[in-house]
């Protein structure tokens, strides 16, 4: 896993994810169990409306920790006609500048411009959380520098 345009190591990212998870456990006054154990349940029950889906919260908190300030966030659990797909779509905004940090535009053919407001990724396993945090950092970090 390579961290392009980022100063964070994989170890730092794992630590931020773990801290975020521990915070959630404390706030919920829940028993001490590992994120891996939680993910085992998550894979079985993610479509159950009663299941407390903490994945977006973990990712948001981890990114906030690594960046060093809380951003304004919007997260969508992507659905198709058969239900939740396992994909999460994030929008991050810098509270100081109000700049949408996940906004980008590009063209494939030099004529038609495509606009993207969010960064998305599927989470099934622990590695997917790391991958999505990295994806978000890679998009957000350069935007923060220029903000």
């Amino acid at each position, binding site marked *: 896993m390579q961290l392009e345009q980022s100063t964070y190591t994989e170890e730092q990212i794992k630590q931020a994810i773990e801290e975020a998870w521990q915070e959630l456990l404390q706030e919920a006054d829940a028993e001490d169990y590992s994120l891996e154990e939680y993910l085992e349940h998550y894979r079985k029950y993610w479509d*159950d*409306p009663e299941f407390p889906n903490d994945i977006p919260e973990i990712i948001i908190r981890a990114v906030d920790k690594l960046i060093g300030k*809380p951003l*304004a966030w*919007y997260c969508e659990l992507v659905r198709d006609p058969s239900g939740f797909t396992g994909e999460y779509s994030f*929008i991050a*905004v810098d509270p100081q*500048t109000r700049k*949408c940090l996940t*906004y980008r535009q590009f063209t494939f053919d030099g004529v038609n411009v495509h606009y993207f407001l969010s960064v998305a990724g599927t989470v099934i396993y622990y590695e997917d959380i790391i991958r999505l945090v990295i994806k978000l950092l890679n998009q957000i970090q350069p935007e923060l520098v220029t903000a």
Partner: protein
Amino acid sequence: MDMEKVLQALREAQAEYNIKDLDSFIKTAWEEGDVLQAQFVAEMVERAVEILFGRHFLWVHIVESEDCELWLPDGWYSFVAVHPETGQCLTFLNDPVYRWKSASFRARIRSADDAVDAVTRLAELIEQNLKSRAVG
């Protein structure tokens, strides 16, 4: 926000989407759990706001659902608007009550009156953000 202008913008958006009875259309969307129809409600609200400002924005919306599995709309919607040139989030809200600052605007739209209220509040929020410091 001028109420007459809001009503006029909604009427224009309604006409663009070829909706005859707005109240009934919106009610059906959540009472019958019609996701497609609820998507049109969200798009129509966005379009009405664009008509009010006389320009296009970039949008993301969620048709919310209580039932994750069946995805039945519950009459709640979330919107994010972004300025296409500056990348400024126009639905940003700094709410001191909550720990997090919000990037989205949320509204319950279960009737034509709710739609008027949603367009009014959404337009006011966008206006506030447009008047705020521009992004760097």
